[in-house]
Protein backbone atom coordinates (compact mmCIF):
# COMPACT_ATOMS: atom_id res chain seq x y z
CA UNK A 1 0.00 0.00 0.00
CA UNK A 2 1.96 2.93 -1.26
CA UNK A 3 0.10 6.00 -0.08
CA UNK A 4 2.59 8.25 -1.84
CA UNK A 5 1.47 6.74 -5.15
CA UNK A 6 -2.09 7.67 -4.28
CA UNK A 7 -1.07 11.19 -3.44
CA UNK A 8 -0.34 12.36 -6.97
CA UNK A 9 -2.20 9.74 -8.97
CA UNK A 10 -5.84 10.70 -9.03
CA UNK A 11 -6.49 8.12 -11.69
CA UNK A 12 -5.41 5.31 -9.35
CA UNK A 13 -8.42 3.63 -7.82
CA UNK A 14 -8.29 2.81 -4.14
CA UNK A 15 -8.31 -0.92 -4.35
CA UNK A 16 -5.18 -1.01 -6.49
CA UNK A 17 -1.66 -0.67 -5.15
CA UNK A 18 0.14 0.62 -8.21
CA UNK A 19 -0.70 2.12 -11.60
CA UNK A 20 0.90 -0.93 -13.22
CA UNK A 21 -1.45 -3.26 -11.36
CA UNK A 22 -4.43 -1.19 -12.42
CA UNK A 23 -3.28 -1.08 -16.02
CA UNK A 24 -2.59 -4.80 -16.22
CA UNK A 25 -5.96 -5.63 -14.71
CA UNK A 26 -7.69 -3.31 -17.17
CA UNK A 27 -5.86 -4.85 -20.06
CA UNK A 28 -6.65 -8.41 -19.02
CA UNK A 29 -10.26 -7.40 -18.51
CA UNK A 30 -10.34 -5.91 -21.99
CA UNK A 31 -8.85 -9.00 -23.60
CA UNK A 32 -11.41 -11.14 -21.84
CA UNK A 33 -14.12 -8.84 -23.13
CA UNK A 34 -12.70 -9.14 -26.63
CA UNK A 35 -12.67 -12.92 -26.23
CA UNK A 36 -16.38 -12.90 -25.51
CA UNK A 37 -16.91 -10.58 -28.47
CA UNK A 38 -15.10 -13.09 -30.66
CA UNK A 39 -17.29 -15.94 -29.45
CA UNK A 40 -20.35 -13.75 -29.99
CA UNK A 41 -19.43 -13.16 -33.63
CA UNK A 42 -18.18 -16.74 -33.83
CA UNK A 43 -21.76 -17.97 -33.65
CA UNK A 44 -22.60 -15.96 -36.77
CA UNK A 45 -19.62 -17.38 -38.62
CA UNK A 46 -20.72 -20.91 -37.71
CA UNK A 47 -24.19 -20.23 -39.08
CA UNK A 48 -22.53 -18.80 -42.18
CA UNK A 49 -20.37 -21.90 -42.60
CA UNK A 50 -23.30 -24.28 -42.26
CA UNK A 51 -25.53 -22.54 -44.77
CA UNK A 52 -22.75 -21.80 -47.20
CA UNK A 53 -21.91 -25.49 -47.31
CA UNK A 54 -25.58 -26.40 -47.74
CA UNK A 55 -26.62 -23.79 -50.29
CA UNK A 56 -23.48 -22.93 -52.29
CA UNK A 57 -25.47 -21.65 -55.29
CA UNK A 58 -27.43 -19.19 -53.17
CA UNK A 59 -24.17 -17.96 -51.70
CA UNK A 60 -22.50 -17.40 -55.05
CA UNK A 61 -25.47 -15.56 -56.51
CA UNK A 62 -26.00 -13.61 -53.28
CA UNK A 63 -22.37 -12.55 -53.26
CA UNK A 64 -22.67 -11.30 -56.82
CA UNK A 65 -25.60 -9.15 -55.73
CA UNK A 66 -23.29 -7.27 -53.36
CA UNK A 67 -21.02 -4.57 -54.74
CA UNK A 68 -17.50 -5.72 -53.96
CA UNK A 69 -16.08 -2.30 -54.80
CA UNK A 70 -18.08 -0.77 -51.97
CA UNK A 71 -16.93 -3.58 -49.69
CA UNK A 72 -13.30 -3.05 -50.66
CA UNK A 73 -13.66 0.69 -50.11
CA UNK A 74 -15.06 0.07 -46.66
CA UNK A 75 -12.27 -2.37 -45.87
CA UNK A 76 -9.68 0.26 -46.75
CA UNK A 77 -11.55 2.85 -44.69
CA UNK A 78 -11.66 0.62 -41.63
CA UNK A 79 -7.99 -0.36 -41.96
CA UNK A 80 -7.10 3.30 -42.13
CA UNK A 81 -9.20 3.98 -39.05
CA UNK A 82 -7.37 1.21 -37.21
CA UNK A 83 -4.16 3.01 -38.09
CA UNK A 84 -5.44 6.33 -36.80
CA UNK A 85 -6.62 4.58 -33.64
CA UNK A 86 -3.21 3.12 -33.01
CA UNK A 87 -1.66 6.51 -33.65
CA UNK A 88 -4.05 8.04 -31.11
CA UNK A 89 -2.80 5.54 -28.55
CA UNK A 90 0.79 6.33 -29.44
CA UNK A 91 0.17 10.06 -29.08
CA UNK A 92 -1.49 9.52 -25.71
CA UNK A 93 1.39 7.39 -24.50
CA UNK A 94 3.89 10.04 -25.49
CA UNK A 95 1.79 12.79 -23.93
CA UNK A 96 0.86 14.59 -27.13
CA UNK A 97 -2.62 15.70 -26.15
CA UNK A 98 -3.40 17.60 -29.34
CA UNK A 99 -2.38 14.77 -31.67
CA UNK A 100 -4.38 12.31 -29.55
CA UNK A 101 -7.50 14.39 -30.04
CA UNK A 102 -6.93 14.75 -33.75
CA UNK A 103 -6.30 11.09 -34.33
CA UNK A 104 -9.43 10.21 -32.35
CA UNK A 105 -11.43 12.64 -34.49
CA UNK A 106 -9.94 11.11 -37.65
CA UNK A 107 -10.95 7.64 -36.45
CA UNK A 108 -14.50 8.79 -35.77
CA UNK A 109 -14.64 10.44 -39.18
CA UNK A 110 -13.46 7.28 -40.94
CA UNK A 111 -16.01 5.23 -38.99
CA UNK A 112 -18.58 7.73 -40.21
CA UNK A 113 -17.49 7.20 -43.80
CA UNK A 114 -17.88 3.45 -43.27
CA UNK A 115 -21.40 3.92 -42.00
CA UNK A 116 -22.34 6.21 -44.90
CA UNK A 117 -21.14 3.66 -47.46
CA UNK A 118 -23.04 1.00 -45.52
CA UNK A 119 -26.12 3.19 -45.63
CA UNK A 120 -26.01 3.40 -49.41
CA UNK A 121 -25.59 -0.36 -49.70
CA UNK A 122 -28.49 -1.03 -47.34
CA UNK A 123 -30.68 1.59 -49.03
CA UNK A 124 -30.26 -0.06 -52.40
CA UNK A 125 -31.08 -3.51 -51.05
CA UNK A 126 -34.18 -2.23 -49.31
CA UNK A 127 -35.17 -0.47 -52.52
CA UNK A 128 -35.06 -3.56 -54.71
CA UNK A 129 -36.38 -6.00 -52.11
CA UNK A 130 -33.26 -7.93 -51.15
CA UNK A 131 -34.62 -8.33 -47.65
CA UNK A 132 -33.94 -11.08 -45.14
CA UNK A 133 -35.85 -14.33 -44.97
CA UNK A 134 -39.60 -14.04 -45.12
CA UNK A 135 -39.46 -10.45 -46.44
CA UNK A 136 -37.33 -11.35 -49.44
CA UNK A 137 -39.23 -9.89 -52.39
CA UNK A 138 -37.00 -8.67 -55.21
CA UNK A 139 -38.66 -6.51 -57.79
CA UNK A 140 -37.79 -4.08 -60.51
CA UNK A 141 -34.05 -3.57 -60.80
CA UNK A 142 -33.57 -6.31 -58.25
CA UNK A 143 -34.94 -8.95 -60.60
CA UNK A 144 -32.64 -7.81 -63.35
CA UNK A 145 -29.72 -7.91 -60.95
CA UNK A 146 -30.58 -11.46 -59.97
CA UNK A 147 -30.68 -12.56 -63.60
CA UNK A 148 -27.34 -10.90 -64.17
CA UNK A 149 -25.79 -12.36 -60.99
CA UNK A 150 -27.07 -15.84 -61.80
CA UNK A 151 -25.59 -15.62 -65.27
CA UNK A 152 -22.24 -14.36 -63.93
CA UNK A 153 -22.00 -17.17 -61.44
CA UNK A 154 -23.15 -19.83 -63.87
CA UNK A 155 -26.24 -20.76 -61.88
CA UNK A 156 -29.24 -21.74 -63.92
CA UNK A 157 -32.16 -20.37 -61.92
CA UNK A 158 -32.91 -18.40 -58.78
CA UNK A 159 -31.68 -20.16 -55.65
CA UNK A 160 -34.46 -20.37 -53.09
CA UNK A 161 -32.07 -19.71 -50.22
CA UNK A 162 -31.01 -16.28 -51.45
CA UNK A 163 -33.31 -15.13 -48.64
CA UNK A 164 -31.17 -16.98 -46.11
CA UNK A 165 -28.06 -15.37 -47.56
CA UNK A 166 -29.57 -11.94 -47.12
CA UNK A 167 -30.84 -12.91 -43.68
CA UNK A 168 -27.31 -13.66 -42.61
CA UNK A 169 -25.89 -10.71 -44.55
CA UNK A 170 -28.10 -8.28 -42.68
CA UNK A 171 -27.52 -9.86 -39.28
CA UNK A 172 -23.75 -10.08 -39.68
CA UNK A 173 -23.24 -6.61 -41.12
CA UNK A 174 -25.94 -5.20 -38.85
CA UNK A 175 -24.37 -6.49 -35.65
CA UNK A 176 -20.98 -5.31 -36.93
CA UNK A 177 -22.43 -1.91 -37.81
CA UNK A 178 -23.85 -1.64 -34.32
CA UNK A 179 -20.36 -2.23 -32.97
CA UNK A 180 -19.04 0.53 -35.23
CA UNK A 181 -21.65 2.93 -33.88
CA UNK A 182 -20.80 2.02 -30.28
CA UNK A 183 -17.12 2.51 -31.13
CA UNK A 184 -17.81 5.97 -32.53
CA UNK A 185 -19.67 6.90 -29.39
CA UNK A 186 -16.92 5.65 -27.07
CA UNK A 187 -14.25 7.44 -29.10
CA UNK A 188 -16.21 10.64 -28.89
CA UNK A 189 -16.24 10.21 -25.15
CA UNK A 190 -12.48 9.60 -25.15
CA UNK A 191 -11.98 12.69 -27.28
CA UNK A 192 -13.82 14.72 -24.66
CA UNK A 193 -11.84 13.23 -21.78
CA UNK A 194 -8.63 13.92 -23.68
CA UNK A 195 -9.73 17.50 -24.27
CA UNK A 196 -10.16 17.89 -20.52
CA UNK A 197 -6.62 16.66 -20.05
CA UNK A 198 -7.40 13.47 -18.19
CA UNK A 199 -4.67 11.49 -19.93
CA UNK A 200 -0.94 11.64 -19.49
CA UNK A 201 2.16 9.59 -20.14
CA UNK A 202 1.39 7.86 -16.83
CA UNK A 203 -2.26 7.18 -17.59
CA UNK A 204 -3.67 6.57 -21.04
CA UNK A 205 -5.46 3.30 -20.30
CA UNK A 206 -8.97 4.26 -21.52
CA UNK A 207 -7.64 5.34 -24.91
CA UNK A 208 -5.72 2.09 -25.25
CA UNK A 209 -8.73 -0.03 -24.30
CA UNK A 210 -10.95 1.83 -26.76
CA UNK A 211 -8.39 1.24 -29.48
CA UNK A 212 -8.26 -2.49 -28.66
CA UNK A 213 -12.01 -2.65 -29.09
CA UNK A 214 -11.79 -0.73 -32.34
CA UNK A 215 -9.18 -3.09 -33.75
CA UNK A 216 -11.45 -6.03 -32.98
CA UNK A 217 -14.28 -4.38 -34.92
CA UNK A 218 -11.79 -4.02 -37.76
CA UNK A 219 -10.77 -7.69 -37.55
CA UNK A 220 -14.38 -8.82 -37.80
CA UNK A 221 -14.78 -6.80 -40.96
CA UNK A 222 -11.54 -8.19 -42.37
CA UNK A 223 -13.30 -11.57 -42.36
CA UNK A 224 -16.77 -10.37 -43.29
CA UNK A 225 -15.59 -8.66 -46.46
CA UNK A 226 -14.26 -11.65 -48.44
CA UNK A 227 -16.78 -14.09 -46.96
CA UNK A 228 -19.76 -11.99 -48.03
CA UNK A 229 -18.61 -10.03 -51.04
CA UNK A 230 -16.05 -12.23 -52.74
CA UNK A 231 -17.53 -15.65 -53.47
CA UNK A 232 -17.11 -17.35 -56.79
Amino acid at each position, binding site marked *: MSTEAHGDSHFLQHHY*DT*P*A*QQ*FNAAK*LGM*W*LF*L*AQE*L*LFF*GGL*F*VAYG*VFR*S*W*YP*QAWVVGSHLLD*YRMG*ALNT*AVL*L*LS*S*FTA*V*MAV*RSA*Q*TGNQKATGNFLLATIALAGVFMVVKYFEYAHKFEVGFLPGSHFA*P*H*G*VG*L*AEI*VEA*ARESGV*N*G*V*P*YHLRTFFGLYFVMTGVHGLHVLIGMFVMGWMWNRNRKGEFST*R*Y*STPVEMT*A*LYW*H*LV*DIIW*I*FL*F*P*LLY*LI*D
Partner: protein
Amino acid sequence: MTTEPLASHSPSSPDDGEVHHHVASARRHVIVLLALLGFTALTVGAYTINLGEWNLVAAVVISTLKAALVVWFFMELKDDVAFNRLVFLGAVIFIGLFMAYTMNDTRHRNRVDAYNGARVDPRSGEFAGGTAAGIVAQGGELGPLPVIAAESDGEAAHE
Protein backbone atom coordinates in the same frame (compact mmCIF):
# COMPACT_ATOMS: atom_id res chain seq x y z
CA MET B 1 12.52 -10.12 -32.45
CA THR B 2 13.47 -8.58 -35.72
CA THR B 3 11.10 -5.71 -35.10
CA GLU B 4 12.95 -4.74 -31.94
CA PRO B 5 14.76 -1.74 -33.45
CA LEU B 6 11.41 -0.20 -34.34
CA ALA B 7 10.30 -0.13 -30.72
CA SER B 8 11.83 1.98 -28.01
CA HIS B 9 11.94 0.55 -24.53
CA SER B 10 11.23 2.69 -21.55
CA PRO B 11 14.45 2.84 -19.56
CA SER B 12 13.11 3.07 -16.04
CA SER B 13 13.05 0.06 -13.76
CA PRO B 14 10.14 -2.36 -14.28
CA ASP B 15 9.10 -2.75 -10.64
CA ASP B 16 8.45 0.83 -9.61
CA GLY B 17 4.71 0.24 -9.98
CA GLU B 18 4.40 2.51 -12.99
CA VAL B 19 3.04 1.54 -16.40
CA HIS B 20 5.84 1.03 -18.91
CA HIS B 21 4.65 1.10 -22.49
CA HIS B 22 6.55 -0.18 -25.41
CA VAL B 23 5.88 2.86 -27.53
CA ALA B 24 6.21 1.66 -31.07
CA SER B 25 7.47 3.97 -33.78
CA ALA B 26 5.02 5.61 -36.16
CA ARG B 27 7.05 4.14 -39.01
CA ARG B 28 6.15 0.61 -37.92
CA HIS B 29 2.46 1.44 -37.85
CA VAL B 30 2.66 2.90 -41.36
CA ILE B 31 4.39 -0.24 -42.63
CA VAL B 32 1.69 -2.43 -41.08
CA LEU B 33 -1.05 -0.28 -42.60
CA LEU B 34 0.52 -0.55 -46.03
CA ALA B 35 0.80 -4.31 -45.64
CA LEU B 36 -2.86 -4.50 -44.68
CA LEU B 37 -3.94 -2.44 -47.67
CA GLY B 38 -1.72 -4.57 -49.88
CA PHE B 39 -3.35 -7.75 -48.64
CA THR B 40 -6.78 -6.26 -49.29
CA ALA B 41 -5.79 -5.54 -52.87
CA LEU B 42 -4.51 -9.10 -53.10
CA THR B 43 -7.83 -10.51 -51.89
CA VAL B 44 -9.78 -8.51 -54.43
CA GLY B 45 -7.27 -9.52 -57.09
CA ALA B 46 -7.66 -13.19 -56.24
CA TYR B 47 -11.42 -12.73 -56.58
CA THR B 48 -11.20 -11.28 -60.05
CA ILE B 49 -9.01 -14.14 -61.26
CA ASN B 50 -11.15 -17.19 -60.56
CA LEU B 51 -9.43 -19.79 -58.40
CA GLY B 52 -12.50 -22.02 -58.11
CA GLU B 53 -12.45 -24.14 -54.98
CA TRP B 54 -9.36 -22.32 -53.74
CA ASN B 55 -11.10 -18.97 -53.58
CA LEU B 56 -12.43 -19.65 -50.09
CA VAL B 57 -9.06 -20.91 -48.90
CA ALA B 58 -7.27 -17.89 -50.33
CA ALA B 59 -9.80 -15.51 -48.79
CA VAL B 60 -9.57 -17.08 -45.36
CA VAL B 61 -5.79 -17.38 -45.37
CA ILE B 62 -5.29 -13.76 -46.43
CA SER B 63 -7.88 -12.56 -43.91
CA THR B 64 -6.17 -14.52 -41.17
CA LEU B 65 -2.84 -12.95 -42.08
CA LYS B 66 -4.41 -9.48 -42.00
CA ALA B 67 -6.07 -10.18 -38.67
CA ALA B 68 -2.77 -11.48 -37.33
CA LEU B 69 -1.04 -8.25 -38.35
CA VAL B 70 -3.68 -6.19 -36.56
CA VAL B 71 -3.55 -8.33 -33.44
CA TRP B 72 0.20 -8.61 -33.29
CA PHE B 73 1.18 -5.02 -34.03
CA PHE B 74 -1.79 -2.68 -33.66
CA MET B 75 -3.16 -4.46 -30.61
CA GLU B 76 0.43 -5.04 -29.44
CA LEU B 77 -0.06 -8.64 -28.45
CA LYS B 78 3.57 -8.84 -29.51
CA ASP B 79 4.63 -7.10 -26.30
CA ASP B 80 1.80 -8.34 -24.12
CA VAL B 81 1.89 -10.87 -21.32
CA ALA B 82 1.52 -14.53 -22.19
CA PHE B 83 -1.87 -14.90 -20.55
CA ASN B 84 -3.47 -12.21 -22.70
CA ARG B 85 -2.19 -14.07 -25.75
CA LEU B 86 -3.70 -17.24 -24.34
CA VAL B 87 -7.06 -15.52 -23.86
CA PHE B 88 -7.13 -14.45 -27.48
CA LEU B 89 -5.90 -17.79 -28.78
CA GLY B 90 -8.38 -19.60 -26.54
CA ALA B 91 -11.29 -17.65 -27.97
CA VAL B 92 -10.20 -18.47 -31.52
CA ILE B 93 -9.76 -22.14 -30.66
CA PHE B 94 -13.21 -22.36 -29.14
CA ILE B 95 -14.79 -20.77 -32.20
CA GLY B 96 -12.94 -23.37 -34.24
CA LEU B 97 -14.28 -26.15 -32.05
CA PHE B 98 -17.80 -24.83 -32.31
CA MET B 99 -17.59 -24.63 -36.06
CA ALA B 100 -15.81 -27.95 -36.55
CA TYR B 101 -18.24 -29.96 -34.47
CA THR B 102 -21.37 -28.29 -35.79
CA MET B 103 -20.33 -28.75 -39.39
CA ASN B 104 -19.28 -32.28 -38.58
CA ASP B 105 -22.97 -32.80 -38.09
CA THR B 106 -24.42 -30.64 -40.84
CA ARG B 107 -22.14 -32.04 -43.52
CA HIS B 108 -22.59 -35.69 -42.59
CA ARG B 109 -26.25 -35.98 -41.77
CA ASN B 110 -26.98 -38.53 -44.45
CA ARG B 111 -23.92 -40.75 -44.40
CA VAL B 112 -25.24 -43.80 -42.59
CA ASP B 113 -28.67 -43.86 -44.11
CA ALA B 114 -29.45 -42.20 -47.38
CA TYR B 115 -32.84 -41.14 -46.09
CA ASN B 116 -31.61 -39.79 -42.85
CA GLY B 117 -31.40 -36.04 -42.91
CA ALA B 118 -32.11 -35.83 -46.58
CA ARG B 119 -34.24 -32.77 -47.18
CA VAL B 120 -35.97 -34.47 -50.06
CA ASP B 121 -37.29 -37.99 -49.88
CA PRO B 122 -35.14 -39.53 -52.64
CA ARG B 123 -37.76 -42.08 -53.63
CA SER B 124 -40.73 -39.83 -54.17
CA GLY B 125 -38.83 -36.61 -54.72
CA GLU B 126 -41.16 -35.11 -52.17
CA PHE B 127 -40.07 -32.37 -49.80
CA ALA B 128 -40.24 -33.08 -46.10
CA GLY B 129 -43.23 -31.65 -44.34
CA GLY B 130 -42.94 -28.27 -42.68
CA THR B 131 -40.58 -26.85 -45.30
CA ALA B 132 -41.23 -23.63 -47.07
CA ALA B 133 -44.23 -23.99 -49.29
CA GLY B 134 -42.30 -21.88 -51.73
CA ILE B 135 -39.62 -24.49 -52.26
CA VAL B 136 -42.24 -27.08 -53.04
CA ALA B 137 -44.11 -24.74 -55.35
CA GLN B 138 -40.95 -24.00 -57.26
CA GLY B 139 -40.19 -27.67 -57.56
CA GLY B 140 -36.78 -27.54 -55.97
CA GLU B 141 -33.98 -25.45 -54.64
CA LEU B 142 -33.74 -23.44 -57.84
CA GLY B 143 -36.68 -21.39 -58.98
CA PRO B 144 -37.00 -20.20 -62.60
CA LEU B 145 -35.18 -17.05 -63.58
CA PRO B 146 -37.56 -14.11 -63.22
CA VAL B 147 -39.13 -12.58 -66.26
CA ILE B 148 -37.57 -9.20 -66.86
CA ALA B 149 -40.73 -7.82 -68.41
CA ALA B 150 -42.05 -7.35 -64.91
CA GLU B 151 -39.31 -4.82 -64.40
CA SER B 152 -41.16 -1.79 -65.73
CA ASP B 153 -44.18 -2.56 -63.53
CA GLY B 154 -42.00 -2.90 -60.48
CA GLU B 155 -40.24 0.36 -61.20
CA ALA B 156 -43.47 2.19 -61.76
CA ALA B 157 -44.93 0.85 -58.58
CA HIS B 158 -41.91 2.05 -56.74
CA GLU B 159 -41.68 5.56 -58.02
